């Protein structure tokens, strides 16, 4: 306190800064602005360079149709052509059931896999390994396994359950199975972590209050898990909605599995109509956002606070 009196602030080394800096820095830090923000720079550069700019570029492109006309001409063309328009329903028809099944199948398995038991690690690896395989390998496997001469059909026929091979590839089901195989581990891992975030003593408390396992699940675990299920559904839905390789490899890309990403691909690389391809990409994003918005709106009706577990 005595120092400024002896020598004027300007005379001291960085005197004036010393007087203003702590106050300003402190006030900024209170608002979350400090040097740690620099850690975000790489991420921001990355997002601007690889997401924001291409997105805005594509959005702009979609309003500049090759054939001229109004800025919305490509959007009108897409929605007036049933062959194009139907890709939305075909994709939704694949992605929503696949995402739902992934989520619903994960719940009981993740529920059972809580706690410790012998062989848990091995089972976990088996359940999660498909995530590492990639869609092409999965498609190869499906072609061999579910194909007309594959093990599955041969087993069916030798058991007398079918007279002729069941068509399970190069159609809707092939793509559906592929989406399950690649999407399930993802959903399972997410739901497992949501489940471990729920304090196990809640279920024990419910048990001492007379709730059997089904009531415990229905009234306690499930409502607390619901927000996690909604989030997991959104993520697996987005993965499934952008399905492309398996729709071609194990689907029927000219017919029932002509998904929206195939339409965009054809516009861009077969007709070289980039504005149209951008338009389709924008529509694809809009549909995804719409579905996610609906799910999150529904999710907001549930309790989303702390659930007391180890998270």
């Amino acid at each position, binding site marked *: 306190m005595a120092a400024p009196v002896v020598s004027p602030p300007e005379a001291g080394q960085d005197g004036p800064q010393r007087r203003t800096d702590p106050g300003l820095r402190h006030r900024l830090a209170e608002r979350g602005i400090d040097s740690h923000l620099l850690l975000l720079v790489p991420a921001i550069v990355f997002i601007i360079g690889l997401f924001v700019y291409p997105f805005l570029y594509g959005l702009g492109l979609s309003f500049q149709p090759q054939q001229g006309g109004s800025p919305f001409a490509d959007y009108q063309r897409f929605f007036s052509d049933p062959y194009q328009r139907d890709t939305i329903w075909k994709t939704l028809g694949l992605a929503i059931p696949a995402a739902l099944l992934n989520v619903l199948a994960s719940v009981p398995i993740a529920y059972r896999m809580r706690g410790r038991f012998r062989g848990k690690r091995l089972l976990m690896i088996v359940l999660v390994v498909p995530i590492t395989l990639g869609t092409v390998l999965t498609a190869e496997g499906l072609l061999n396994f579910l194909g007309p001469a594959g093990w599955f059909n041969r087993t069916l026929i030798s058991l007398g359950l079918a007279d002729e091979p069941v068509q399970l590839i190069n159609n809707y089901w092939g793509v559906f199975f592929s989406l399950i195989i690649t999407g399930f581990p993802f959903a399972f891992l997410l739901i497992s972590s949501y489940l471990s975030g729920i304090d196990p003593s809640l279920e*024990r*408390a419910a*048990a*001492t*209050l*007379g*709730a059997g396992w089904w009531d415990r699940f229905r009234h306690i675990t499930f409502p607390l898990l619901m927000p996690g299920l909604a989030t997991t559904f959104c993520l697996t839905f987005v993965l499934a909605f952008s399905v492309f390789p398996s729709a071609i490899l194990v689907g029927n890309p000219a017919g029932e599995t002509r998904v929206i990403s195939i339409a965009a691909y054809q516009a861009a690389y077969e007709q070289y109509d980039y504005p149209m391809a951008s338009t389709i990409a924008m529509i694809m994003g809009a549909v995804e956002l719409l579905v996610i918005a609906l799910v999150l709106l529904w999710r907001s009706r549930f309790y989303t*606070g702390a659930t*007391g577990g180890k998270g």
Partner: protein
Amino acid sequence: MTSFSTLHLRGVGRRFGKHDALADLDLEIGKGEFIALLGPSGCGKSTALNCLAGLLPLTAGSIWQDDTRIDVLPPEKRGFGMVFQNYALFPHLSVRRNVAFGLRMRRVSKPELNRRTDEAIRLVRLEEHAHKLPGQLSGGQQQRVAIARAIVLEPSLVLMDEPLSNLDAKLRLEMRTEIRRLHQSLGLTTVYVTHDQEEALSLADRLVVLRDGRVQQIGTPEQLHTRPANWHVADFMGYRNLLPCTAGARSGEAVAVEGDGLRLLASPVGDLPEGAAAVAAVRPEDVTVTEGSPAGPNRIEATVEVVEYQGRELAVEARTAGGTRLHIRTGRRLAPGDEVVLDIAVERLLAFAQQYTARAGEPADTAGRPVLAGQETA
């Protein structure tokens, strides 16, 4: 709920791998009784409670409710209420729905459900918080919700697992009175787990002291307080001075003990043959600071080392010439460095056999908390 006249635990045991968390627990609980399971952490008291609740299957023994064997029933079929240490309130349900949960599960009719829920909420004085979520309540209020949720079913037995351990000191005292009040007004049979001897003494009709999964003593608060069965129980009951010594000759009711330069006369508890390793135990408040030369046989000269102010009394730590540290409570104003002469009434100095720590290959202080007073100085 089905009521009972006695609940029998017969040789109840629970093993985890090769470790006996609880062994040979025999206990008879009468209707309306308040039993406290007391012991240090890891003594098996929570295991015992979870076994009673049905949350943990037994590995030995059986539990009988009158003539019905209940250890084979799942928790939801036992009809016991339980208050968990972390309360385990359902975070997504309001206070009211938390309290009503058990009634809903039992398909109680709507009017009765409403009446009983209101009554339970009123009993724990949470009327104005009934619509809130547990996360919006303070610790003490959450605790009361947990109690209301357990007692609304009028369970034949209420189990409480250290329900006050997450509260601050003042609230703990208030809730203790609350629990006692509820027990007295409702007459609910209660088994209460705690590591706090004061809590156990003030609440329970009978105490069960556990250590290493085994019962050390079962008795009324007074029995345990004045006549602990072994030095571990004594240690737990506030006998802070535990002096390792050797038993000497008997003279009438008293026994001579000797250790670290002290020769004292003590009251023997249990079998204590001459020459046996022993532990002499006395509470800080039973060590008196004499004014002049005492006539008693247990005269000890010591130097005051540490003084803690505790309101009306001081907690003093004094050291004898032989190096033994003694804890004293006294109303006299002492200061570090003062030379004092102490006295202990013969009937207040209990002598126990030390055998308990003499298990093969195990140092005296690994299993239990106490490091004996004499060993500290060694």
